[in-house]
């Protein structure tokens, strides 16, 4: 008997080499044994991704998973505009058993093609409400450096919306947007990962809120966003901090800054605690008017309404006003067993006109506050 004295690692490698000699087990007959290790890298990627939430969005979005050290990884999901929610977790099959569990329902459609060092995703989205139909197409991709420490991302998305408000202020109006996104994610040290993303969106068409009086906005909007993110793992505490800064500007002359940070601290025994803080400030659109009304006509007519050009631009939409906002929250997460997670989140949000840090604002606006208390129970399947 020729018992092998090789190290187990070599044994596994030699078994793989032997298995690859079996006829027809690999799709490409001339694939060298190294391809096996490439498959492993995919698996590695998959494995690291398994415990992380994934977020889907209608806007062009890029999800980057970067293995940073042996035990932890960060997934940054970056969207140009809007996030629709976390995708559900479920098990599609069970290894070692013979029974199956059912599939999810399909959402927006997207096809991803995987390459050795990159991905290419094409997607389409369709959403409809009784007064609104939106269609979007997107193409995005990533390319990683040879050492996988740097990932470049790009995205291109177009949408076409049809607006038919029930009050018939307008009929069959349209809005088109085209977005371009470029970004880079880099593993800076085994404990740090940084990301920079630039987005430009050109929109043309109907931007008004058809349900607001005197809402007449420009028919073109150009938006730029710069987003910087930095995730840092702290060896001494085992926690992870996530910091980000976003700068936004558009042709409505809104300028906005967002600074946000959160810190995830695992406490052991399945507990972790996540404090978070977000600071936001924006300037008003140039055609925004404060809810002060014409002295003669009274509400809801804006000052000087009678003598103004009927086509002049104006909007009382509070989201176009100048304001500042602070969000502070605390989340406590407890994993119970392997299947259940309970989280409790308390969040306070306060928005005030005079909290704007830059530019002119809308001091007359009433502060807005919200307290959000949320209990979540998640079962993994």
């Amino acid at each position, binding site marked *: 008997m020729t018992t092998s004295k090789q190290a187990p690692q070599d044994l596994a490698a030699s*078994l793989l080499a032997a298995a690859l000699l*079996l006829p027809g087990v*690999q799709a490409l007959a001339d694939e060298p044994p190294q391809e096996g290790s490439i*498959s*492993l890298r995919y698996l590695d990627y998959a494995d690291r991704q398994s415990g992380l939430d994934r977020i889907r969005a209608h806007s062009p979005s890029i999800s980057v998973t970067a293995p940073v050290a042996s035990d932890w990884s960060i997934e940054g999901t970056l969207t140009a505009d809007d996030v629709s929610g976390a995708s559900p977790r479920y098990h599609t*099959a069970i*290894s*070692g058993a013979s029974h*199956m569990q059912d599939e999810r329902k399909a959402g927006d459609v997207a096809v991803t093609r995987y390459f050795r060092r990159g991905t290419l*995703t094409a997607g389409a989205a369709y959403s409809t409400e009784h007064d609104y139909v939106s269609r979007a197409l997107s193409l995005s991709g990533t390319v990683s450096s040879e050492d996988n420490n740097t990932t470049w991302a790009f995205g291109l998305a177009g949408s076409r919306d049809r607006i038919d408000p029930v009050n018939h202020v307008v009929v069959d109006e349209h809005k088109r947007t085209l977005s371009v996104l470029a970004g880079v994610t880099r593993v800076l040290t085994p404990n740090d990962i940084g990301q920079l993303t630039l987005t430009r969106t050109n929109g043309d068409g109907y931007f008004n809120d058809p349900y607001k009086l005197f809402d007449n906005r420009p028919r073109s909007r150009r938006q730029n966003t710069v987003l910087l993110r930095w995730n840092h793992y702290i060896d001494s505490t085992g926690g992870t901090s996530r910091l980000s800064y976003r700068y936004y500007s558009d042709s409505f002359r809104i300028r906005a800054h967002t600074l946000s940070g959160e810190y995830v601290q695992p406490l052991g025994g399945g507990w972790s605690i996540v404090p978070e803080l977000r600071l936001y400030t924006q300037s008003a659109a140039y055609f925004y008017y404060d809810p002060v009304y014409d002295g003669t006509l009274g509400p809801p007519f804006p000052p000087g309404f009678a003598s103004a050009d009927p086509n002049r631009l104006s909007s009382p939409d509070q989201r176009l006003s100048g304001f500042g906002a602070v969000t502070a929250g605390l989340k406590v997460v407890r994993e119970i067993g392997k299947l259940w997670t309970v989280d409790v989140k308390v969040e306070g949000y306060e928005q005030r006109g005079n909290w704007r840090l830059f530019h002119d604002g809308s001091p007359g606006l009433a502060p807005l506050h919200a307290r959000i208390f949320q209990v979540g129970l998640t079962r993994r399947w």
Partner: protein
Amino acid sequence: MVDEVYRFPFDAMASRCEIRLAAPDGHAAEELALAAIAEVRRIERTYSRYRADSIVSRINAAAGRYRVECDAETAQLLDYADHLYRASGGLFDITSGVLRRAWDFRQPRVPHARELAPLLALVDWTAVQRDDGAVYLPRAGMEIDFGGFGKEYAADRACALLQERGVRHGYVNLGGDMRFIGPQPDGRLWSIGIQDPRKPDGIVASIAVSHGALTTSGDYERFIDVDGRRYCHVLDPRTGMPVSHWRSVSVLAPLAVLGGSVSTIVMLKEDEGLSFLASSGLAYFAIDSTGQAHHHSISGDYAS
């Protein structure tokens, strides 16, 4: 514009099986699935111990009498079996199937040593003679079978066939041993649960997979409980007795045939299995006889 995922459950190799694949329409999906299922059935038929006309039955029937010419595929499977034997220090032995004559897992009875002794004399891969594409089992009563990796081989072959026909999303699941073609059409990974070895409807872990293979060996597939002790169907070819150190070993590997071989070797290595797993470079999830889980994610290349 996006292909839908179609599911094709079927029974083969005494297991519940399923193929999932994305295709432009149901007709195309069915055509692809039927071709893959036909390949699984071809392997089952060709290498069945239960069919008198199979190559395995003919080799076994000729034991102690004459040599049997092998086709190229059988010769390659025997080559792999030889490699497995050497890589496992003799633990993975495709001649050990004769022990089933003493172990009937339908009856709660542990065979006596005197029943096992004559069978153990027939377990000896090194005695098998192979030359010029022919194989000869020198002792009457000797048997070989490919049960140890046939299912995984079939999963790999079916998967490769689908890939060659342009399938990019889906997987082949033969009784819980799975080979993946690619992620779901929307790019999301398949989330696969690991069977709880003690609770038939429970899972103990999960993993998201898009490529490669996930295989599981366990002591819960076929077993008998006698006097409070579990005797499972994985038998040590040196003693003829069931192994007992592991309840379940799952391995993530580039090929199902590799994953299945490694998880079986780990079961056979008993308490030395963990160090074998740990240094194999493969991701694994193993549960020992006390119920404790051991797991590891892949950390680097091992096939360089």
